[in-house]
């Protein structure tokens, strides 16, 4: 039997003892999510089968030693099948995929599972119980994305299951919200930037460094404009001053290093000469290569 059959209470008697693991787990307190996870979930949802309402999958990532901080780094889809009174999760698929993932990135463990939809599935508690056992001795994190955009947004929610009731039953579980933050490593940021630019106009190609710089400078310019406008309106009293913004702006101004003119011009000149020298040498090398190539063809 390759699928895990999870049934609603009437048939779930055999699972009662495993439900007790819920109480002994260390609960997470902070969750970090990498953007690639969200994109994978959306892709999975787009590729769901006909008349399938939600998709689920396994979240992989790393934990701090005490299990309080969870970092969700990647995920994979798990096929499942829901009917009115039971849910089937393809266990074999889950295990194979996990084993395959282990080979490529050994550090990532199972940290929880994801589902799509505007509300919790009625089998969420059962699936949560299964993943809690997979993630033991830590608790499993449940990530929900509202792919129907029912509230006009994707409403990413991070939840954590907690046992409820005198005797722990797998089907009794309360999902508590878990604070999360998205993590943007530098390399991902640049990729997201490009993707965001493209979603503005449908499809776009990649831009050169120079164009990218130009865009950033323009953006910086408009930011400065807005701040100037705000500061002027605060100074002439039309807008109520705000201490947080004031302090922040002060800090920002303090970051600009104070270099005296003479030192600056020395630094500027030497840096400029470095750049020009390197550019000259590399161009010379290229010219040499070209000549060598042409000569060889004549020979």
């Amino acid at each position, binding site marked *: 039997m390759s699928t895990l059959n999870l049934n609603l209470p009437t048939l779930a008697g055999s699972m009662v003892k495993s439900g007790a693991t819920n109480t002994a787990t260390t609960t997470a307190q902070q969750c970090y999510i990498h*953007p*690639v996870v969200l*994109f*994978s979930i*959306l*892709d999975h949802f*787009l*590729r769901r089968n006909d008349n399938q309402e939600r998709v689920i999958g396994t979240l992989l990532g790393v934990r701090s030693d005490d299990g309080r901080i969870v970092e969700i780094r990647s995920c994979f889809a798990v096929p499942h099948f829901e009917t009115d009174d039971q849910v089937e999760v393809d266990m074999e698929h889950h295990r194979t995929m996990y084993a*395959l993932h282990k080979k490529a*990135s050994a550090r990532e463990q199972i940290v929880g599972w994801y589902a799509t939809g505007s509300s919790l599935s009625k089998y969420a508690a059962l699936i949560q119980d299964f993943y809690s056992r997979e993630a033991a001795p830590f608790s499993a994190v449940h990530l929900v994305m509202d792919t129907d955009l029912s509230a006009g*947004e*994707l409403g990413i929610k991070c939840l954590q299951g907690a046992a409820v009731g005198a005797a722990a039953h797998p089907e009794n579980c309360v999902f508590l919200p878990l604070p999360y*933050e*998205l993590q*943007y490593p530098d*390399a*991902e*940021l*640049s*990729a997201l*930037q*490009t*993707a*965001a630019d*493209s*979603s503005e106009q*449908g499809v*776009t*190609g*990649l*831009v050169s*460094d120079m164009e*990218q*710089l130009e865009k*950033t*400078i323009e*953006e910086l310019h408009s930011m400065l404009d*807005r*701040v100037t406008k705000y500061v002027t309106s605060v100074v002439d009293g039309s807008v109520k001053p705000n201490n*947080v*913004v004031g302090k*922040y702006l002060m*800090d*920002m101004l303090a*970051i600009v290093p104070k*270099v005296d*003119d003479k030192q600056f011009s020395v630094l*500027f000149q030497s*840096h400029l000469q470095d*750049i020009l020298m*390197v550019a000259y040498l*590399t161009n010379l*090398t*290229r010219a040499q*290569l070209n000549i*060598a*190539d042409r000569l*060889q*063809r004549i*020979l």
Partner: protein
Amino acid sequence: MAAADSKNQAKPMTALLNENNELATFDLAAIPAHLASVLDIEATKAVTSVKVDPLAVLKIVKHSREAFPTSVNGQLLGLEIDGVLEVTNAFPVPTQPGSEEDMTNYQIEMIQCLREVNVDSSSVGWYQSTRLGDFMQQPLLDVQASYQASPSNSSIVLIHDTAKSEQAGNLSLRAFRLSPTYLELAAAGKFTTAELAAKGLTYGNILEELPIEIESSNLASALLAELQWPGGSVEQELMESLQRPSSFNARLRARKLADRSAIADDADSDSLSSLSGLLPSRPNYLARPFCTNSLDLTPSGVTRHLETIGELIDEHIHDANQWMYWQRGAAKEKYRRQQYVQRKKNANAARVARGEKPEPEESEKELDKMFRTLPEPSRLDALLNTANLNLLTKGITQSRGPALTKLYMAQGLHESA
């Protein structure tokens, strides 16, 4: 009912075997025009551009970043439609040494698993991460050649430069495939100067570059928009982001906002409405930048680049010397052969003049045996070396513009400060 049936049959029907090996029939006219070419398996249309899904990009970026500075590779999944190669997914290939069989099994299993969840299961190529941009290596060409050996011939290799993506704040992703000229020469295994010149293979046309586009689905666009502007009160979000150490532009903020609690006490929730002037107007909201790394003034690894260029130049000179040595040897041998032939001719002419019988002349084959010239060393290594040099120097030349711009920007800032 019967009338409808006969009407259906009048239309052209195409028969295909579906997954269960049942003969399924469907209406050819129901297929959108741009998909029609997919059904035509015999037609081979050269790929002219590459479309990459953000998911695939992010997966590649993540894999390369985690393994940095080691160079890693993985498989690309997708579909080729009408000359456009759509890369929709990717998965990493383990870097641990394993037998070739293990690798193949890993890939087959992975593709099977992904097929179960309706991911495009056909391989459209592979990706490789690079550190400096000198990716022109013999193994890369060999692997790509094996990918292109498949009948569809539409496989590509995506090169991701991690360091550049991070430091320049601009995604550095390039799509390549081997040029037909290279494939032709590689099949013959002849990389001699004469062959290279005859076929016109230079360091610049070993690989063909294809234009890349990034296409996000509607849902992915919604996600991107939301990541740039999380829902809820925009003003509240601004306040929070000013106080939070780990968000956009976190490093600057964390450095300066050590005394966060004091600021938090100052936060005056009813003054939030006055902040709207600081925010960009809504219609333009997608323009909020994710990444401002391109404004970073620190030079990005130029030293490392220059060192590598130096090494490559040394290698280049070594190659050139080796070739010159061979060339001189070959020329000497040729000269001796000509002299021998000439001497023999003169001797024979003298014998004929004296009325004697001329000695038999050696055939070309015998001459070849007598004056053996060494085969020319393969020029491929030198060619790749030159190609790498070209890539690196080009990269530096291209980084000059932004570097100068930033330099003058700093000057402007200094003058106005």
